[in-house]
């Protein structure tokens, strides 16, 4: 009976020990191999290579929690601006025919520097810096 009790205690201790070790190591391993997490606060993002971006076109890039519109102008310049319309937050787009930024929600128009030039938007779009690092487009916060 005594031996049984000892055995029982030992096995409980063993199981508890393994559990304890797992509880210590699992978080360590998870920390070393983190799940895919988007960084909510970022200061710069890569936006692809210059070669797969045609002139006079645009794309919407995630910049932390904010959408940014990246435009390659007809003369191959890059412009990055906040893509949230300053009127009611619709996502703006680049019109390749008029070479302007357009908000389809209420016909708000911005120029390529983000200045609100017609329609309801009350403020310009926030500007971002664009740098080209070894053929890669990098968008960074201004200032």
């Amino acid at each position, binding site marked *: 009976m005594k031996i049984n009790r000892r055995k029982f205690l030992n096995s409980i201790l063993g199981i*508890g020990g393994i559990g304890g070790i797992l*509880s210590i190591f699992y978080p360590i391993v998870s920390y070393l191999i983190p799940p895919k997490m*988007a960084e909510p606060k970022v200061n710069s993002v890569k936006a692809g290579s210059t070669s797969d971006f045609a002139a006079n076109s645009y794309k919407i890039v995630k910049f932390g929690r904010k959408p940014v519109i990246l435009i390659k102008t007809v003369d191959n310049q890059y412009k990055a601006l906040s893509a949230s319309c300053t009127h009611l937050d619709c996502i703006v787009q680049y019109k390749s025919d008029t070479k302007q930024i357009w908000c389809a*929600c209420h016909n708000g128009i911005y120029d390529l520097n983000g200045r609100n030039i017609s329609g309801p938007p009350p403020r310009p779009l926030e500007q971002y810096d664009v740098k080209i690092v070894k053929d890669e487009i990098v968008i960074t916060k201004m200032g």
Partner: protein
Amino acid sequence: MRTRVFYLSTTVLLTIFLFGFAFQKTDNKTKQTPKVDNCLSCHKDIDDMPQGYSDYDVHRQAGLTCASCHGGDPSSTDQEAAMSPAKGYAGVPKRKDIPKFCGKCHSNIDYMRIYQPRIATDQVTQYYTSMHGKKLMAGDENVAECASCHTAHSIFPVKDPRATVYKLNIPSTCNKCHGNSELMKKYNLPSNQLEEYSKSVHGIALLKQNDLGAPACNDCHGNHGAMPPGITSISHVCGMCHSSNMEYFNATKMAKAFAEQDFHGCEQCHGNHGVQKPTDDMVGVGKNSKCVDCHDKGDVGYVAAEKIEAEIVQLKNNYDAATNKFLEVREKGMNDVDIGFLLQDAKQNLIQSRTLVHTFDPAKVVVKTKDGMNITNKAIMLSDKEISEYYTRRNGFAAATLAFLVIVIALYLKIKDKEKRKQA
């Protein structure tokens, strides 16, 4: 000693400079305002100032005097001489003459350019094409002229919040006359426009949310050339902001049918001054549907309306479900960034699907709602993953606590066991 001399001379020079500057300022001022303006001083003395007079009036601030508009000789202290027609005194203009009275300067680009190089000078010309202008010309003195909207003696630039024509003040300025039911009865016009407008989506945006992008009366009716928007122009007026809706609508067969039936474009379904935020059941065949006003059960339009509503409602419900899950993820402190992006996309799709209603073509709407459904489904899937991750972590934590508890108890018993054996 040297330092002292330096400080002293600097102080003296600075004082001279500041004095010079101050004198120069006064000089400029005297140049702008004439030395003697007996009209103003006498009228102030005898307390006979025009109603609503303000020293901050734009004309006064620009250095104009009473005589600049009313004529006369402000340098004379003799009332008769100062106000003699020989000196150009015109007195208070008659209502019907006011547009020309203001137009003396405001229609003269050479003169106006001195004050504001970019100012428009076609206000009077426009005014005479307006309903107000036409009626005034025809001898109706009840209609609005320049001063009715701008006031006579407390005029401020249009961007100045004190101005009666500042965007936020326009509805109440127009309402001074248009809200007067007695006056409006004469013209067979309603007088509840402001009441309706204040409850409309535009009125709430402008008057409650101070959204200066929202239209006030003049954005649809014009200002100096104010007119009720005609049947042909109505969709253009709305289309100034709602451009895609206008483009889609004008390309449909329905636009032609509307014109043939003398229907009022956008207004036919959305109303005018009281326009509300559209709801999804305005299409479809339910009791709030506008489509069933003309379409009967079984006809092509009826079927299309039913399909369009079903598609949009399905997307809206899925979008709401995804939003709720997103909020749950956020509340649990899990990673919501990607889901937030998907929802932004889904919202764009929902807006675009609703705009595409104006094509009255279910196939075009379906393209967008399908995209929207895919995006919202993805958002729901991601949210579920995050939520289950949250529970995995929580359960894991509970299991770890349990494991440690078991170790502690087992250790305690083990020690006790050992002690017992030792004693034995």
